[in-house]
């Protein structure tokens, strides 16, 4: 995103906006959306009416008491609104920036690829799916589409935040362009895939703004639970009124509890903490994903990410560094080690592939053989060709070649030399270890083998071990042969691998896992990845990928980083954990609230119940006030946690549960006892009560 706000997550402007929104959200229509807070909203209205009635002389409690409770209840509602508004704030800021790049521009529509001369200038909003447009350097790409002719560099910073331009060209896996990005060089012919209004940018704006946010199944289930609790507490308080009336009449006194204090009890008991923060948690989860530069097409996808237990990771870029490196020279047939290194270096001096460069470096490191200039040595470079499958140098009729085993074998045998058993043994050994053998021949005679090794990224073993502890298995996807793949898989510590992977193979593997009850996540970019992406439960498409891949996935990674999947899983889990932990905290709080309010309400009726006032709160009124004030303030206090998410560690489910239960369950029981007591001391000291 081009609006990143990673340092301070709330700035002054956002704060102002959120406060304003808290009041706008007081409308009946908005409040109805959140049943738990709607109850508080109605309670506030009720106590307001009771206060007005008390001013006119109709009341069962003092007007000051009713007024005090009313004010706190309204603040409770406002605090909940504020929590949601501040969570939406970041998204809104992002959306504003994105909207700025969504200008209406002039598009050059052409009838077909071959008729670039027949340009018809139309507004980008008038473009339909299937239209063909011509874009030149310096112009903005008018709509999402596929490049059908040309190649150009495109500045996609409006969407990805990355300022370095990227190449977009017809055919292959880099053909997708996004409306709102700018062409820097050359020209492109683009076929429109999405009309204005359905474009990637539009979807993105809707997602970051939360407009398209639908409640996820999990959120709905939680909502049901919270509503049920609220109904129970409503019954508890209403029946308490009748119990109290009944007991009072048995004792021959007037009903000791007022409607206002019952309403206060109801609001305290209802799960307002989680009710107030629930939508903020959801929005913040989405927002965290956006900050990781991943765009989810639905909230459902994020939740599914938390459930994933199989990660299919591409070997290259995720598990290994992109390139192989030479790590050893192994001479065979009695050849000299230094001679081999020298020949290997000579053959690679002009080889600009990373593998070639690593050979030069290894020779230099091990035998101090300096890189030389071919021209000075009067050498002729023979580049790699598909026909010979070898590369090397010619030096006055002396040929040095390096290449794959079968190519060199053919080459030396054609010139009357042998491919020895010893050499074959070395080649097999290297393959077993997961390496790639390159054979070097000088003067048609084999000198030895270069051991090219896949370099496993640092720290991946630990990462996979952590994932395993969480119950997530990693599967490596590679085009290598099974032998090599097995060796790399063992070294990297992945649980399984798919060698010689084809798109069909990937699809089949996902289906097999799903049939066994697993949830699978994968990343992909190519068009041939699309079926597998569509089948996977969580599919992250690279932004550099094709339109088809992006359509098939349910998330798009704007950074196009293959390791992003792990981050996505983390965010998904964190979202669910935050909900669960705050729910536990909210419910556990009720215990202390009972101990504050019940003795306060009934000490008059049954003096013995004073024993339940274990916090020794000052008076009945101060007890009720303290409980209600705590109930309101805890919402504000937990907003940062709701936005950041609870602390997440890669440990097993039971360890996570123990930890969260201790912090949010036990903490939720103890914290309010202390906080309510402190509030009681403060308001008593201030003489408010």
């Amino acid at each position, binding site marked *: 995103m081009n609006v990143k706000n990673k340092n301070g997550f709330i700035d002054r402007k956002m704060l102002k906006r959120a406060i304003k929104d808290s009041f706008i959200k007081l409308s009946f229509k908005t409040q109805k959306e959140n049943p738990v807070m709607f109850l508080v909203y109605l309670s506030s209205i009720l106590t307001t009416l009771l206060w007005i009635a008390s001013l006119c002389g109709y009341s069962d409690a003092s007007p000051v008491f009713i007024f005090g409770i009313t004010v706190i209840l309204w603040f409770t509602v406002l605090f909940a609104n504020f929590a949601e508004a501040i969570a939406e704030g970041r998204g809104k800021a992002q959306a504003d920036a994105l909207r700025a790049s969504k200008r209406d521009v002039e598009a050059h529509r052409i009838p077909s690829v071959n008729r670039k001369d027949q340009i018809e200038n139309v507004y980008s909003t008038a473009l339909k799916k299937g239209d063909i447009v011509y874009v030149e350097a310096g112009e903005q790409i008018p709509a999402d589409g596929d490049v059908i002719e040309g190649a150009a560099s495109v500045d996609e910073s409006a969407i990805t935040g990355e300022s370095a331009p990227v190449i977009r060209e017809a055919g292959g896996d880099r053909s997708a362009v996004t409306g709102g990005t700018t062409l820097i060089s050359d020209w492109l012919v683009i076929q429109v895939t999405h009309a204005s209004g359905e474009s990637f940018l539009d979807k993105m704006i809707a997602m970051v703004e939360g407009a398209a946010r639908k409640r996820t199944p999990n959120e709905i289930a939680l909502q049901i639970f919270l509503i049920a609790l609220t109904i129970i507490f409503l019954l508890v308080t209403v029946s308490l009124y009748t119990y109290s009336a009944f007991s009072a009449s048995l004792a021959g006194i007037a009903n000791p509890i007022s409607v206002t204090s019952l309403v206060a009890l109801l609001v305290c008991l209802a799960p307002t903490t989680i009710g107030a923060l629930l939508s903020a948690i959801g929005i913040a989860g989405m927002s965290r994903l956006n900050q990781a530069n991943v765009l989810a097409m639905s909230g459902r996808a994020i939740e599914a990410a938390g459930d994933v237990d199989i990660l299919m990771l591409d070997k290259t870029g995720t598990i290994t560094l992109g390139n192989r490196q030479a790590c050893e020279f192994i001479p065979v047939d009695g050849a000299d080690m230094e001679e081999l290194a020298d020949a290997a270096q000579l053959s690679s001096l002009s080889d600009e592939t990373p593998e070639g460069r690593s050979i030069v470096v290894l020779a230099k490191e091990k035998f101090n053989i300096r890189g030389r200039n071919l021209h000075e040595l009067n050498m002729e470079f023979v580049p790699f060709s598909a026909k010979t499958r070898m590369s090397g140098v010619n030096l006055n009729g002396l040929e040095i070649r390096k290449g794959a085993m079968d190519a060199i074998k053919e080459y030396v045998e054609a010139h009357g030399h042998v491919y020895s058993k010893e050499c074959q043994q070395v080649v097999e050994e290297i393959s077993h270890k997961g390496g790639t053998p390159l054979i070097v021949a000088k003067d048609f005679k084999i000198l030895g083998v270069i051991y090219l090794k896949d370099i496993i990224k640092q720290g991946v073993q630990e990462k996979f071990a952590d994932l395993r502890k969480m119950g997530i298995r990693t599967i490596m996807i590679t085009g290598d042969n099974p032998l090599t793949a097995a060796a790399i898989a063992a070294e990297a510590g992945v649980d399984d691998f798919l060698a010689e992977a084809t798109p069909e193979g990937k699809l089949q593997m996902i289906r097999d896992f799903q049939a066994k*009850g697993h949830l699978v996540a994968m990343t992909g970019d190519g068009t041939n990845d699309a079926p597998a992406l569509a089948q996977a439960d969580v599919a992250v498409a690279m932004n550099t990928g094709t339109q088809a891949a992006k359509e098939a996935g349910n998330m798009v990674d704007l950074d196009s980083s293959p390791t992003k999947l792990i981050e996505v899983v983390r965010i998904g889990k964190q979202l669910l954990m935050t909900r669960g932990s705050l729910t536990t905290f909210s419910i556990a709080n009720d215990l202390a609230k009972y101990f504050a309010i019940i003795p306060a309400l009934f000490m008059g009726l*049954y003096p013995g119940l004073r024993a339940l006032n274990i916090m020794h709160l000052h008076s009945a009124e101060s007890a009720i006030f303290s409980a209600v004030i705590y109930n309101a303030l805890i919402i504000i206090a937990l907003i940062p946690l709701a936005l950041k998410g609870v602390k997440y560690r890669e440990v097993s489910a039971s360890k996570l549960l123990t930890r969260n239960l201790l912090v949010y369950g036990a903490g939720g029981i103890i914290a309010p006892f202390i906080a309510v007591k402190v509030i009681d001391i403060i308001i008593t000291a201030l003489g408010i009560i």
Partner: protein
Amino acid sequence: MMTSAWIQIALYLIILILLAIPLGNYIGKVMTGEKVFLSKLIAPIEKVIYKLLKVDVSEEMNWKKYAISVFVFSGIFFVLLFGIQVLQGVLPLNPEGLKNVRWDLAFNTTSSFVTNTNWQAYSGESTLSYFTQMLGLTVQNFVSAAVGIAVLFALIRGFVRVQKKGLGNFYQDVTRIILYILIPLSLVSAVALTSQGVSQNFKAYEQVDLVEPIVLEDGTVIEKGVVPLGPAASQIAIKQLGTNGGGFYGTNSAHPLENPNNVTNLIEMLSILLIPAALCFTFGRNIHDRRQGRAIFAAMFIVLTLATSAIVVNEQMATPQLSQNQTVDLTPHQQAGGNMEGKESRFGIAASSTWTAFTTAASNGSVNAMHDSYTPLGGMIPMILMQLGEVIFGGVGCGLYGMIGFVILTVFIAGLMVGRTPEYLGKKIEPYEMKMAVVLCLATPIAILIGSGIAAIVPSVADSLNNGGAHGFSELLYTYTSAGGNNGSAFAGFNANTIFVNLSTGFSMLFARFAPILATLAIAGSLVKKKKIATGAGTLATHNAMFVGLLIFVIVLIGALSFFPALALGPIAEFFGM
């Protein structure tokens, strides 16, 4: 020194476990159609019954069909039982010439027995004929118990089956439960009880000379007493086994002809929890993961043990009033000390308290002592056990499916806390299951809160009370708790036979029974269609101590949050007022 009491309780619990494990296996086999040692004898009878009733047992019912069958089946028996009562005057087997039962009482008793509650607003010996007792009530004791167990098995199939629709055949389930489980167990129990002197005959009541004539305050001397007789043993056996609890006589198992000695007391007390405990093991066996059954059993067992101990301690310590000036010996040496008011001297504190815990934990409701006379906290524990939703073993079948409702809630919260969409036994818990689990778990609190809440403002209810003050409120609360928990035990002291109480408790019982049944079957119907999710290290384990602890915590928390205010005005206020 309460060692003897602890030894006694430990013995009860050990015998219970020893009997429950093999019975659990047996029930599991019966319900999956495997061969058991009674198959040879019963299978032909089973076939005949299906033929007579024209039941096609090969038909697999989906959840709606299963639910409709439950309702039709219960409905038919509802009408039948109501009819028998209001017409008992003209029906046979009525040697005492008892009159037709009043409509509101008949409605109450019918609701009570059809819902496996067995709340008794009447006194059996003075209200119901032998015909009503046997063909009306005893039959209900079997079928209402069978319905509860059948629904549990529908739910079990919902967990076990993958991407199917059928939950089994209701009529086959009920038939098997009655033929293979309830009748054989009742037979054994009834014979044992009769051998110990429990009444089993069709004789008219007998007049006997009292050993010691009673002189009333006005000077009248009573020399003769009426001994009610009748076919008691056969009904008592099933009333205990089927967690029904409706006594043959008004004072239930405190009556010497219903529960004459310590042997019968042991048999009857163990019968209360036998099937509910066995079903936990059946559950583990039939879902192919015995650890899960043991975990649920452990959760129930821990709460039961704690509750039993709490009652025993409170009754033994009695009250400050009783201990004043050593009026009452509170030491348990030699003879029963402590609070013996309302308890039978032949049972004493330990056996009475244990029974109280068992009968209110299981939704049985039979009593061998009067709960009204317990100490405030000793009387609060049975109330809490019922208010928890009758899931600490609970009624046959319904206790376990109620517990699974709580397991679903626990799994949901715990699942979120570990960052996964909650699942139980490989089936995902989604909004639909949550909705139904909430109905399942909260039906009891809702029924109790609404029932008692309304009763508290009905002026006539105050006249039913035996006591004033906090204890008076406890009597009212207990009544609606017993009805809403489908328990049926009485606090005594509360005159329940009024039109308002009969109707309100009647509806409360029907709601608390059938809403959860519907919810359970809906959950089963939804689960059976789902695929099974693979388990791994990221899956929340539902068989370890951690989960058991959490489950207990959730159950107690929901109970406490729902009833703390009510209990504060009743037993807690009474306790602090002593």
